[in-house]
Protein backbone atom coordinates (compact mmCIF):
# COMPACT_ATOMS: atom_id res chain seq x y z
CA UNK A 1 0.00 0.00 0.00
CA UNK A 2 2.67 2.46 -1.07
CA UNK A 3 0.60 4.45 -3.49
CA UNK A 4 -0.43 7.88 -2.19
CA UNK A 5 -3.92 7.86 -0.79
CA UNK A 6 -6.87 9.49 -2.41
CA UNK A 7 -8.45 12.50 -0.86
CA UNK A 8 -11.69 10.74 -0.03
CA UNK A 9 -11.20 10.82 3.71
CA UNK A 10 -13.02 12.73 6.40
CA UNK A 11 -15.66 14.27 4.16
CA UNK A 12 -18.70 15.62 5.89
CA UNK A 13 -21.94 14.17 4.65
CA UNK A 14 -24.90 16.55 4.27
CA UNK A 15 -27.00 14.86 6.95
CA UNK A 16 -25.51 13.69 10.23
CA UNK A 17 -25.06 9.90 10.09
CA UNK A 18 -25.83 7.60 12.98
CA UNK A 19 -22.84 6.40 15.05
CA UNK A 20 -22.95 3.05 13.29
CA UNK A 21 -23.10 4.70 9.88
CA UNK A 22 -20.27 7.01 10.82
CA UNK A 23 -18.21 4.04 11.96
CA UNK A 24 -18.94 2.16 8.75
CA UNK A 25 -18.15 5.22 6.66
CA UNK A 26 -14.86 5.75 8.45
CA UNK A 27 -13.91 2.08 8.18
CA UNK A 28 -14.34 2.24 4.42
CA UNK A 29 -11.95 5.17 3.95
CA UNK A 30 -8.43 4.66 2.73
CA UNK A 31 -7.12 6.37 5.83
CA UNK A 32 -8.88 3.79 8.00
CA UNK A 33 -7.29 1.09 5.88
CA UNK A 34 -3.91 2.72 6.41
CA UNK A 35 -4.58 2.70 10.13
CA UNK A 36 -5.68 -0.94 10.08
CA UNK A 37 -2.54 -1.96 8.24
CA UNK A 38 0.03 -0.07 10.29
CA UNK A 39 -1.47 0.70 13.70
CA UNK A 40 -0.01 -2.37 15.39
CA UNK A 41 3.53 -1.48 14.27
CA UNK A 42 3.19 2.14 15.33
CA UNK A 43 1.50 1.32 18.63
CA UNK A 44 4.14 -1.29 19.44
CA UNK A 45 6.97 1.12 18.71
CA UNK A 46 5.35 3.78 20.90
CA UNK A 47 4.59 1.27 23.64
CA UNK A 48 8.06 -0.14 23.93
CA UNK A 49 9.84 3.13 23.21
CA UNK A 50 7.87 5.14 25.77
CA UNK A 51 7.25 2.23 28.14
CA UNK A 52 3.77 3.39 29.08
CA UNK A 53 0.53 2.00 27.56
CA UNK A 54 -1.44 5.22 28.15
CA UNK A 55 1.26 7.36 26.56
CA UNK A 56 1.54 4.88 23.70
CA UNK A 57 -2.20 5.12 23.08
CA UNK A 58 -2.07 8.91 22.98
CA UNK A 59 1.04 8.85 20.83
CA UNK A 60 -0.49 6.45 18.30
CA UNK A 61 -3.57 8.65 18.03
CA UNK A 62 -1.45 11.76 17.57
CA UNK A 63 0.84 10.12 15.02
CA UNK A 64 -2.04 9.02 12.83
CA UNK A 65 -3.76 12.38 13.19
CA UNK A 66 -0.54 14.06 12.02
CA UNK A 67 -0.41 11.61 9.15
CA UNK A 68 -4.01 12.47 8.28
CA UNK A 69 -3.16 16.16 8.17
CA UNK A 70 0.03 15.65 6.19
CA UNK A 71 -1.12 13.02 3.74
CA UNK A 72 -0.85 15.46 0.85
CA UNK A 73 2.89 15.73 1.61
CA UNK A 74 3.47 12.02 1.12
CA UNK A 75 5.44 11.67 -2.10
CA UNK A 76 5.63 7.93 -2.35
CA UNK A 77 9.43 7.97 -2.14
CA UNK A 78 9.25 5.79 0.95
CA UNK A 79 6.68 3.23 2.00
CA UNK A 80 3.71 4.29 4.08
CA UNK A 81 5.18 2.25 6.93
CA UNK A 82 8.48 4.14 6.80
CA UNK A 83 6.69 7.47 6.54
CA UNK A 84 4.54 6.67 9.57
CA UNK A 85 7.56 5.46 11.51
CA UNK A 86 9.32 8.76 10.84
CA UNK A 87 6.38 10.69 12.28
CA UNK A 88 6.19 8.28 15.22
CA UNK A 89 9.91 8.47 16.01
CA UNK A 90 9.88 12.28 15.97
CA UNK A 91 6.76 12.34 18.10
CA UNK A 92 8.11 9.87 20.66
CA UNK A 93 11.45 11.65 20.83
CA UNK A 94 9.69 14.96 21.46
CA UNK A 95 7.63 13.39 24.23
CA UNK A 96 10.72 11.85 25.73
CA UNK A 97 12.65 15.11 25.49
CA UNK A 98 9.87 16.94 27.29
CA UNK A 99 10.03 14.28 29.99
CA UNK A 100 13.83 14.49 30.21
CA UNK A 101 13.63 18.26 30.56
CA UNK A 102 11.58 17.76 33.69
CA UNK A 103 13.64 14.95 35.18
CA UNK A 104 17.28 14.26 35.86
CA UNK A 105 18.15 11.30 33.72
CA UNK A 106 21.32 9.65 32.54
CA UNK A 107 21.70 6.74 30.22
CA UNK A 108 24.42 4.25 30.89
CA UNK A 109 27.52 4.70 28.80
CA UNK A 110 27.56 2.59 25.65
CA UNK A 111 30.79 1.00 26.80
CA UNK A 112 28.84 -0.73 29.56
CA UNK A 113 26.82 -2.55 26.95
CA UNK A 114 29.82 -3.25 24.75
CA UNK A 115 31.32 -5.14 27.68
CA UNK A 116 28.10 -6.92 28.55
CA UNK A 117 28.56 -10.52 29.64
CA UNK A 118 25.85 -12.14 27.55
CA UNK A 119 26.67 -13.32 24.09
CA UNK A 120 24.69 -11.67 21.32
CA UNK A 121 24.19 -14.98 19.57
CA UNK A 122 22.89 -16.82 22.62
CA UNK A 123 19.27 -17.96 22.43
CA UNK A 124 16.80 -16.10 24.60
CA UNK A 125 14.65 -18.54 26.50
CA UNK A 126 11.55 -17.75 28.46
CA UNK A 127 9.28 -19.91 30.55
CA UNK A 128 6.43 -17.65 31.50
CA UNK A 129 5.02 -15.78 28.55
CA UNK A 130 2.65 -13.78 30.75
CA UNK A 131 5.56 -11.88 32.29
CA UNK A 132 7.40 -11.58 29.04
CA UNK A 133 6.15 -8.07 28.25
CA UNK A 134 7.37 -6.75 31.59
CA UNK A 135 10.79 -8.33 31.17
CA UNK A 136 11.14 -7.01 27.65
CA UNK A 137 10.12 -3.53 28.79
CA UNK A 138 12.61 -3.55 31.65
CA UNK A 139 15.40 -4.60 29.34
CA UNK A 140 14.47 -2.03 26.71
CA UNK A 141 14.11 0.75 29.29
CA UNK A 142 17.65 0.16 30.46
CA UNK A 143 19.09 0.34 26.95
CA UNK A 144 20.42 3.56 25.43
CA UNK A 145 17.70 5.19 23.30
CA UNK A 146 19.60 4.48 20.12
CA UNK A 147 19.84 0.76 20.75
CA UNK A 148 16.22 0.54 21.83
CA UNK A 149 14.99 2.24 18.68
CA UNK A 150 17.27 0.17 16.49
CA UNK A 151 16.04 -3.13 17.89
CA UNK A 152 12.39 -2.09 17.60
CA UNK A 153 12.79 -1.05 13.98
CA UNK A 154 14.86 -4.05 12.92
CA UNK A 155 12.25 -6.29 14.53
CA UNK A 156 9.78 -5.09 11.91
CA UNK A 157 10.04 -7.53 9.02
CA UNK A 158 8.73 -4.92 6.61
CA UNK A 159 11.75 -2.65 7.08
CA UNK A 160 15.08 -3.25 5.34
CA UNK A 161 18.41 -2.26 6.90
CA UNK A 162 18.47 0.58 4.38
CA UNK A 163 15.13 1.87 5.63
CA UNK A 164 16.18 1.48 9.25
CA UNK A 165 19.35 3.40 8.37
CA UNK A 166 17.30 6.19 6.78
CA UNK A 167 15.02 6.40 9.79
CA UNK A 168 17.92 6.50 12.24
CA UNK A 169 20.12 8.68 10.00
CA UNK A 170 23.00 6.27 9.51
CA UNK A 171 24.32 3.87 6.92
CA UNK A 172 23.08 0.28 6.66
CA UNK A 173 26.57 -0.86 7.69
CA UNK A 174 26.38 1.27 10.81
CA UNK A 175 22.98 -0.26 11.54
CA UNK A 176 24.45 -3.75 11.29
CA UNK A 177 27.38 -2.85 13.54
CA UNK A 178 25.25 -1.22 16.21
CA UNK A 179 22.67 -3.96 15.99
CA UNK A 180 25.24 -6.48 17.13
CA UNK A 181 25.99 -4.39 20.23
CA UNK A 182 22.30 -3.72 20.81
CA UNK A 183 21.51 -7.45 20.74
CA UNK A 184 24.32 -8.13 23.18
CA UNK A 185 23.18 -5.43 25.55
CA UNK A 186 19.57 -6.55 25.35
CA UNK A 187 20.51 -10.18 26.03
CA UNK A 188 22.48 -9.14 29.12
CA UNK A 189 19.61 -7.05 30.46
CA UNK A 190 17.01 -9.66 29.61
CA UNK A 191 18.99 -12.27 31.50
CA UNK A 192 19.24 -9.91 34.45
CA UNK A 193 15.46 -9.59 34.56
CA UNK A 194 14.94 -13.37 34.72
CA UNK A 195 12.81 -14.08 37.83
CA UNK A 196 14.24 -17.62 38.01
CA UNK A 197 17.98 -17.07 37.77
CA UNK A 198 18.81 -20.57 38.94
CA UNK A 199 16.58 -22.20 36.40
CA UNK A 200 18.40 -24.61 34.19
CA UNK A 201 17.27 -23.07 30.94
CA UNK A 202 17.99 -19.51 31.93
CA UNK A 203 21.67 -20.28 32.35
CA UNK A 204 21.90 -20.56 28.62
CA UNK A 205 20.65 -17.06 27.84
Amino acid at each position, binding site marked *: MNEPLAESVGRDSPSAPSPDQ*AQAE*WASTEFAQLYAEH*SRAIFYLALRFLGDPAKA*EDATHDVFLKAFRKMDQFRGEASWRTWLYRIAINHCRNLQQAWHDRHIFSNADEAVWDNAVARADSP*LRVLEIKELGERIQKALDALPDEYRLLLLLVADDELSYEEVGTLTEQSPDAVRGKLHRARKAFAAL*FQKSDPTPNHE*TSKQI
Partner: protein
Amino acid sequence: MKHQSKFNPEQQHTAAQQSRQQTTREFTTAEELLRYDASEVTVPPAIAQRLRQSSADLPGPSKPWWRRLFGR
Protein backbone atom coordinates in the same frame (compact mmCIF):
# COMPACT_ATOMS: atom_id res chain seq x y z
CA MET B 1 9.33 -15.50 12.72
CA LYS B 2 11.15 -18.38 14.17
CA HIS B 3 10.29 -19.41 17.66
CA GLN B 4 10.16 -22.87 19.12
CA SER B 5 8.07 -24.26 21.91
CA LYS B 6 9.87 -26.82 23.97
CA PHE B 7 8.59 -29.03 26.72
CA ASN B 8 11.28 -29.53 29.28
CA PRO B 9 11.00 -32.99 30.94
CA GLU B 10 13.60 -32.12 33.57
CA GLN B 11 11.13 -29.76 35.19
CA GLN B 12 8.61 -32.49 35.96
CA HIS B 13 9.79 -33.33 39.45
CA THR B 14 6.44 -33.06 41.17
CA ALA B 15 2.82 -33.46 40.27
CA ALA B 16 2.34 -29.74 40.80
CA GLN B 17 5.07 -28.99 38.38
CA GLN B 18 3.64 -31.45 35.94
CA SER B 19 0.29 -29.73 36.08
CA ARG B 20 1.90 -26.44 35.21
CA GLN B 21 3.33 -27.91 32.04
CA GLN B 22 5.59 -24.95 31.53
CA THR B 23 6.47 -24.24 27.97
CA THR B 24 9.87 -22.96 27.09
CA ARG B 25 10.06 -20.70 24.11
CA GLU B 26 13.36 -20.04 22.52
CA PHE B 27 14.22 -16.98 20.49
CA THR B 28 17.42 -16.76 18.54
CA THR B 29 17.70 -12.98 18.58
CA ALA B 30 16.27 -10.00 20.40
CA GLU B 31 14.37 -9.02 17.24
CA GLU B 32 12.70 -12.39 17.13
CA LEU B 33 11.61 -11.99 20.73
CA LEU B 34 10.30 -8.49 19.99
CA ARG B 35 8.42 -9.78 16.95
CA TYR B 36 6.70 -12.32 19.10
CA ASP B 37 5.96 -9.68 21.72
CA ALA B 38 4.50 -7.37 19.06
CA SER B 39 2.25 -10.14 17.80
CA GLU B 40 0.88 -10.56 21.33
CA VAL B 41 0.10 -6.87 21.80
CA THR B 42 -3.45 -5.69 21.23
CA VAL B 43 -3.94 -2.21 19.85
CA PRO B 44 -6.54 -0.48 22.07
CA PRO B 45 -9.76 -0.10 20.05
CA ALA B 46 -10.22 3.32 21.66
CA ILE B 47 -7.49 4.73 19.42
CA ALA B 48 -9.47 4.12 16.24
CA GLN B 49 -12.57 5.63 17.83
CA ARG B 50 -10.67 8.73 18.97
CA LEU B 51 -9.06 9.01 15.57
CA ARG B 52 -12.38 8.85 13.80
CA GLN B 53 -13.74 11.64 15.98
CA SER B 54 -10.59 13.75 15.68
CA SER B 55 -10.38 13.42 11.92
CA ALA B 56 -14.07 14.23 11.51
CA ASP B 57 -13.37 17.67 13.00
CA LEU B 58 -10.72 18.35 10.38
CA PRO B 59 -11.05 19.06 6.68
CA GLY B 60 -10.15 16.06 4.56
CA PRO B 61 -6.59 15.90 3.35
CA SER B 62 -5.98 17.80 0.14
CA LYS B 63 -4.85 16.08 -3.02
CA PRO B 64 -1.19 15.08 -3.13
CA TRP B 65 0.97 17.60 -5.01
CA TRP B 66 1.43 15.26 -7.98
CA ARG B 67 -2.31 14.73 -8.31
CA ARG B 68 -2.91 18.47 -8.27
CA LEU B 69 -0.22 18.94 -10.91
CA PHE B 70 -1.37 16.22 -13.25
CA GLY B 71 -5.05 16.51 -12.48
CA ARG B 72 -5.40 12.87 -11.51
